[in-house]
């Protein structure tokens, strides 16, 4: 299972990086979304998969899944959400002010000379 997950994560990273390298701002943000999914799944996979019950005491299993990666991911999800939201509004404002979402056109004045 872990190997399958590693491949899935690899594909998520591949498409995320490909999107980040594109011209459109929106696609770049979609790419970061895919990257963060990949990272979260990576943390979970590296903690080991399906090694026991849901980490809530009182479940009858004698073994629980490792709760630490889950706590880490929860934090990471919230932070990446905050950053994504911020970026999206930034992109939206950039559209409004500059009238473009093409990263190549968003260069500083020096590069255009």
């Amino acid at each position: 299972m872990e190997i399958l997950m590693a491949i899935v994560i690899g594909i998520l990273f591949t498409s995320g990086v490909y999107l980040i390298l594109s011209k459109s701002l929106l696609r770049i943000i979609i790419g970061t979304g895919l990257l963060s999914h990949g990272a979260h799944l990576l943390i979970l996979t590296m903690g080991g998969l399906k090694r026991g019950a849901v980490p809530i005491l009182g479940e009858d299993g004698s073994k629980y899944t490792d709760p630490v990666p889950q706590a880490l991911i929860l934090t990471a999800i919230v932070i990446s959400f905050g950053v994504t939201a911020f970026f999206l509004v930034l992109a939206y404002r950039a559209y409004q002010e500059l009238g473009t979402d093409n990263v190549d056109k968003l260069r500083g004045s020096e590069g255009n000379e």
Partner: protein
Amino acid sequence: MSSLHLAIFSPFLMAILIPFIFKLFRKLHIGWFVLILPSILFLFFLSKIPLIKDGGVLKATLNWIPSFDINFVAYLDGLGLLFTLLITGIGSLVVLYSIFYLDKNKEKLHNFYVYLLLFMGAMLGVVLSDNLIVLYTFWELTSFSSFLLIGYWNTRERSRYGAQKSMLITVFGGLSMLGGFILLSIMTGSFSIHEIMLQSNTLISNELFLPALILVLLGAFTKSAQFPFYIWLPDAMEAPTPVSAYLHSATMVKAGIYLVARLTPIFALHGAWFWIISLIGIITMCWASFNAVKQTDLKGILAFSTVSQLGLIMSLLGLGSASLHYDFLSKNIYMGAIVAAVFHLINHATFKGSLFMVAGIVDHETGTRDIRKLGGLMYVMPITFTIAVVGTLSMAGLPPFNGFLSKEMFFTSVLNVLQMNIFQMETWGILFPILAWLGSVFTFIYSILLLLKTFTGKLQEEKLDKKPHEAPLGMLFSPIVLGALVIIFGFFPNILSRNILEPAVASILPNLLQENDRFAVHIRFWHGFNLELLMTIGVVVVGILLYLTLKKWRNIYNIFPKRFTLNRFYEKGIDITEKGSYSFTRRLMNGSIRSYLIYIFIFFIGIVTFTLFKKDAIKMDTTNLAPIGIYEITLAVIIILGSITILGAKSRLTSIIALGAVGYTVSLFYILFRAPDLALTQLVIETVSTALFLLAFYHLPQLSRKEEHIGFKLTNALISIGVGLVITIVAISAHSNKMFDSIAKYYIENTHDKAGGGNLVNVILVDFRGFDTMFEISVLGIAALGIYGMIKLRLSNQKKQQRRMADENK
């Protein structure tokens, strides 16, 4: 604080006071006030002669950074005394001269004297420091104050160019020298010159010895304007003439000579020291004197002449270092070269200082320094002419002036090379007398040229800006004193030998000290009819012949193409470096985020792959894997399909929806992998972010809303596949390389008993690791505030509107 330290620091203290005094006493020329200090210092150092003469030294320590063994150890011996006398003596004369040279109403005198005093203090620090790091500090301070002085007329472009050039070259050398010093301290564990000297016998076998030697010599050669680093000195002639006289003839350019002399006991046992210094010195001497003849500017001639004479002294120091290789002390002829070097050092300071002052007077009284416009000043300026005669004839090496004596000693030294039987000198030694003789011929020519073109012939009054007349007595005083010294040292050289030369030579060759009597005898030996005298007669005869036929062979200077001059190399070098780095930055930093991301990803792939192979870390362990079920396979397929859809989607809407699909599938994975809290959060957040994406999509600008295919790019695809592969391999290898168990056991055991909770994840979030959560909350808060600010705050719009209104009003 000892008197030595006080002497070194007093110019700096004085420099602080100058601006205040300048403001207070507007009527008085501030130079009169400055003059007091170097005169007192000169008398102070004069009073040390009896002590030093008897072999005594003055040593005082002032703690600076004791933990690094960097202390300000002032050390006054024969060599130090000679230099301090030059610095303070010529310093006083130069200050006196500058009082008449610089107009107090037209020039910013306070700046001038602050720089000059800084320089004087730094120079005293260089020659009196025993600690290498302190020496380096003062060394850089001389570069720095010399930079300020060369660029004194900073509104002129040539001044700035000359200042920058000298700064670049001397600081380059200074930094190399620092490297050499550090290597020395690594080898010996000490920064003290005299402690390092004690270890010089064992040092030579150290593998760092040769690099240290070369680096230190780079410092000395750049400072003393040796080949090929002499190019800064002719351009430094843009400085006011008192500065040229002081820095670029008598003191700063001799700092490199001082360094070589001072470190001779450490390095001289190595053959490279002898070879490099003697050869570079003699080449510099010959090349610069050859080039001096072609100059048309008085100060240009003097600059090249300075370079040439410095080469002469340098080669004498190199030749003199051979004396350490010979044990037969009773007949050690090679130490004569050291005596000659020290003697010529003094002579050069006297006649070159006076010649620069003469050039300054000519410039001051006629308005030009171009020898093509000058001529016939002999009758107008008789006193200046007399001084010039003394100075130039001494420079040319004619009797009865002091230059003659040192030139004879120079010839003796290069002839002695023929008797050497070390360093393949049997075959190559003949080079030295030939080059020395050639150099002397050209020295003779430019000296005569300088004298005759300026002072004889016809007065070309129509070409001069001012009507020439004799300079005021105050301006003439300093060159008269120096000219008088030239004559006095010429007739009575022995007043120097016992008091100054012997202790100086003793501190350059301390290992031969027990033979003290030999030094003395050698110096007084200056008469006799011998080969050296014949060489001098040859110089005069050939020199006069060449001077008379100068017009016929002058074209020889045009044969050598301008493209290959060292200045062109320097300028090309600067140009190429500047343009090269500019275009490098231009190419690399092209302003496109995508290129930067490509660099980052390529480095990521490269470094991680390299490390994986280097550490042999790629591993696949299939023993401890979780089983794969049909649900997992289905979800994995959905995720893969989702991400491929995003890649291939023509419409942005499709990709947003596909991203949402991927997100929901991830939350389904969380359910499968027993993470209910994650699944909940992921579901909610995916919903909200998809809504946000849709909002951003809705507000796309109308123009580019036209939906287009993403456009396939091979490089991008290769890079992203590389990143994905690297991540997969790292994930698999990391999973196969588990080193130790998880710490989860502790949380599972203590969640109920110690924290009083049941949900492991939540207890970790708010109890065991609550700090993370607090700052995660701050992140969300900051994001919310930031978003609010971005939407509400419209500063640029207001500005734009204001500008628009302003345009309309026009």
